[in-house]
């Protein structure tokens, strides 16, 4: 009689079935080469239909390689948010920047998931432009289940925003980054600087956003209210000039929507 079971599910059970084997070959960013199953030796040289379609396709559209971003972010990301990368956002205002990164893509059919940031302001998300009908919020999983949960979303959802309450293992982070590259999702690591200990990301991030200077407008008179925030955002990382790019934004702008200054 074996009533006692291991508390955590065995890895093999989590890995099986492989969640996204149902992707069509042409849906995968990098389809595996090779003959279709069951092809006889004589047919080995004949490419499959999908392979032929891929060869004659004129070019990959820019939309397939990058997610659109708000116009306000055009100065920082002129080509949009490249698929398959990992992004870090940290410091004061990190949540607003992360929401601004996701806003335009969710409006054009991409889904976004937030794993482990229960404090994220959803009303603010909607004001910045995130389409709430394509946003999913997941409570912070146990550290043991964090990686399987995030891995399930990477590939199924275009934007995965994570804010782990623990320090993920180096191996998990490397596997997640590889999975992003392979499946074209963007992983955004959020480490808000306000009222939270800053926790690190044990791996390389392709892009790092940081907010350098912040100033609120609208409180000049004591009877006024917060209206907009001017912030200097800088981004650095792979594929950018060594000194990075910086731009001044109003985030949130006077009516919530980010505006480039």
């Amino acid at each position, binding site marked *: *009689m*074996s009533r006692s*079971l291991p508390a955590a*599910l065995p890895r093999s*059970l*989590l890995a099986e*079935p492989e*969640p*996204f084997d149902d992707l069509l070959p042409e*849906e995968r960013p990098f389809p595996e080469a090779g003959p279709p199953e069951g092809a006889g030796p004589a047919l080995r040289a004949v490419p499959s239909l999908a392979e032929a379609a891929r060869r004659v396709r004129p070019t990959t559209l820019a939309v397939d390689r990058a997610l659109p971003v708000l116009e306000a972010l055009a100065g920082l990301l002129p080509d949009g948010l490249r698929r398959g990368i990992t992004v870090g956002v940290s410091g*004061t205002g*990190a*949540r*607003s920047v992360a*929401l601004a990164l996701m806003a335009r893509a969710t409006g054009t*059919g*991409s*889904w976004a*998931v937030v794993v482990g940031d*229960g*404090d*994220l*302001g*959803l*009303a*603010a*998300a*909607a*004001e910045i432009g995130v*389409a*709430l*009908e*394509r*946003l*999913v*919020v*997941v*409570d912070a999983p146990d550290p043991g*289940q964090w990686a*399987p*949960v995030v891995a*399930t*979303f990477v590939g*199924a*959802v*275009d934007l995965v925003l994570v804010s782990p309450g623990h320090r993920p293992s180096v191996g998990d982070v490397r596997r997640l980054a590889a999975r992003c590259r392979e499946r074209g999702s963007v992983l955004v690591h959020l480490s808000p600087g*306000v*009222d939270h200990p800053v926790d690190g990301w044990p791996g390389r991030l392709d892009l790092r956003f940081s907010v350098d200077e912040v*100033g*609120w407008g609208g*409180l000049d008179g*004591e*009877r006024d*209210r*917060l209206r*907009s925030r001017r912030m200097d955002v800088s981004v650095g990382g792979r594929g950018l000039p060594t000194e990075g790019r910086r731009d001044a934004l109003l985030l*949130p*702008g006077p*009516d*919530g929507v980010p505006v480039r200054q």
Partner: protein
Amino acid sequence: MNGPVVNGPVVNGSIATPAAVRILVVGCPDWPLVALGVVSDEPALVLGAGRVVAANGPARAVGVARGQRRREAQFLCPEVRVLARDEGREARGFEAVVSALGAVTPWVEANRPGRCSFGVRGPVRLFGGEVALVRHAAEVVDAAVARVGSGSDGGPGSRVPGCQIPGCRVGVADGAFAAGLAARGGGPAPEHPMIVPRGGSPAFLAPLPVEVLLPVESLAGSSAGPTADLVDVLVRLGLTTLGAFAALPVADVLARFGTVGLDAHRLASGIDDRPAGHRPAPPDLAVSVDFDPPVDRIDRAAFAARSAAEALHERLSTRGMACTRVVVEAETEHGERVSRRWRDEGVLGPAAVADRVRWQLEGWLHGPPAVRPTSGITRLVLAPDEVVPASGRQMGFWGGVSAADERAGRACARVVGLLGPGSVRIPEWRGGRDPDNRVALVPFVEPAREGGSGGGGQPEIRPWPGALPGPSPAAVHVEPMAVGVVDAAGAPVTVDGRGGLSAPPDRLVVPRSSVGTRPAAATGERVVAWAGPWPVDERWWDPLRRRRRVRLQMVTADGTARLVVLTDGRWTVAATYD
């Protein structure tokens, strides 16, 4: 008989025999409430995924209905007791009812917790007539329900002694659809069952509104789905009763509404309510899962059941079939077995099969000690019992459900399987005066049939007087942090009855314990700018849920803007403009 005359419809080249199978349906009213052990004459309702799934008699009497939001229900009946749904308890309790019915006939088909059915052909001879059979079945079910309702396994049960559990409803008719409606229409069973005479189903169905075609789940969820669209069109065409719809020629219905329309037409005409082209399943399609080591935890078994259900679905769909009835069989290390037949009016998708496995195992593994197995489950078999040709599905081109939506939905369902129900949530607009209640998070529920995931919704346009002016804070703290607000002299800032501040706030003092190592914690951070106060007094008529608060926006020297709230004399940071 003046019911509509329908010729045997020709489907897939074979003539479906209009052999009407006499079916007896047993329904337990308000099952989600009874399973929770709540039997009282105070109004009560059960809320699942943000909507009312069941309400008892006193609540229904004032207009609370299935599918309403909590807010609507509380508006109609402010004193209503709101309970959270517990599907595990529902399934556990109902398993006892179904096994009690096993004494009447071995061929009980469970439909969902709270409803089961069986063919009367065998037992009717044993008990000597349908009236006697109905009486006996109702007595058996009522006795079993009384044992469940007496709340043996704790929970929020509050049985008021003088109150009766609502008696079960029993209906007998030709076909499960008509029998189910007869059960809904009849009174408490032993005295007032509704027995539709043989051949009387068409006449019985004819005056009923077409809305009864809607699957029961869709009442509680969003009104999406092909059947909802069909019913909507029928009503707009002026075909408001099943009789009017059934009078249309089959060929025209098929041409105009496709397979959805055809199946609905067969239901409405009351002659053969099984989906078109049903047939027994070939024997080699069963999917089995072996567990080594044996499993005695419901979540592990349910996780495996989900992938088994997907494998079954895959296996069926490669042959162009879909399943309408499935037998779920579980076996333990010691050879104990439980086998249950599940039937649904529509097609059972992978999620629906996985739900049924979970319900069945809940009832078995967590049931009363007499039926509980003595060891873990070693084998789980899902065998399709009756299949229909799959009607296939077309992905949306623009609008509708896109491939991205499908993938996201599947990933969410998988994570729900990993972390448990309620862990994955989607935002829904509610409207309100504060950032913490303008958008609510509701649990993600996988649509049982095809359709969008719901959620989202449109921003509330109605004005909320006294609402906090925008922009909204990007961080709304789940656990507000207690702080002190002091004026230049170091005295705590207070607010008088008219909402005026005693003095301008000068410093924000964060208690050392709540934030580990902040250098400025002890002395506080200087407030460089502030705005407000905005007092708001919500629900002042309700002593329990009254919220009276004063909001202030403050920017401290480090440039951080916070929303600071005074409630009951205590200041907290409710949100940060991150």
